[in-house]
């Protein structure tokens, strides 16, 4: 008994089976490669996220303060007072006071000041004198 193309039907079925197995093996290999690529991509994403987090930790933390009623953004840290005056635009010959708990606290140019969020400063001349 023969099929339409004249071959043995069993042979043809075996050929079809081999073809199907080859296609299946190729599909499995493709799937394996794809899974491997996905895993690599996930690792790269994780690495990039770690780098972003690390970069955030190294970014200077800017906070809002007021100096003579003008809002300014500076890095929250400890400054030399003279350098801080330069940073916030207060002339060197003016005195800078920090308002702490409702009191003017004069800052010595040679000293340091720890600047934090919402700190308020007032600069003024040193013009007054006893007579």
């Amino acid at each position: 008994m023969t099929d339409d193309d004249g071959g043995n039907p069993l042979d043809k079925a075996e050929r079809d089976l081999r073809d199907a197995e080859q296609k299946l093996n190729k599909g499995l290999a493709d799937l394996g490669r794809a899974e491997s690529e996905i895993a690599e991509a996930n690792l790269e994403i994780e690495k990039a996220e770690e780098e972003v987090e690390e970069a955030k930790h190294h970014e200077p933390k800017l906070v809002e303060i007021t100096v003579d009623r003008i809002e300014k953004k500076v890095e929250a840290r400890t400054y030399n007072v003279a350098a801080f005056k330069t940073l916030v635009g207060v002339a060197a010959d003016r005195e800078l006071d920090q308002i702490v708990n409702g009191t003017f606290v004069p800052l010595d140019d040679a000293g340091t000041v720890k600047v934090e969020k919402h700190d308020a400063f007032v600069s003024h001349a040193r013009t007054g004198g006893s007579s």
Partner: protein
Amino acid sequence: MTAEDLAEVQAVCAGARAMSEGGVEFVFLPALKIPVGAGEEVRDALLSLAAHTGYTSRLYLSAPIPTKGQNWTVHTVLGRTWHTPSFNNILPGRAAAMLADHLRVYR
């Protein structure tokens, strides 16, 4: 005196309010905390924002601060007796800056 000027002063004296007498503006500063040496004194105070009693501006206190300031004199302003040392040449400007400059005499 602008609202912003007054608000800035209120950061160091919550009850600060503007007053005037004889065409001169003042800021009344109830229970003002005054740094004195390593400590602090509390006085009612009255800051003139223009020339007053012969000085370019004045910071009057409800009572003198012993050992600080020179040549204390007594004045009556806005119906109340005030004390002030001789401390001159603080020119009219922003109230908070004037106040900070006046307070230097008590350090």
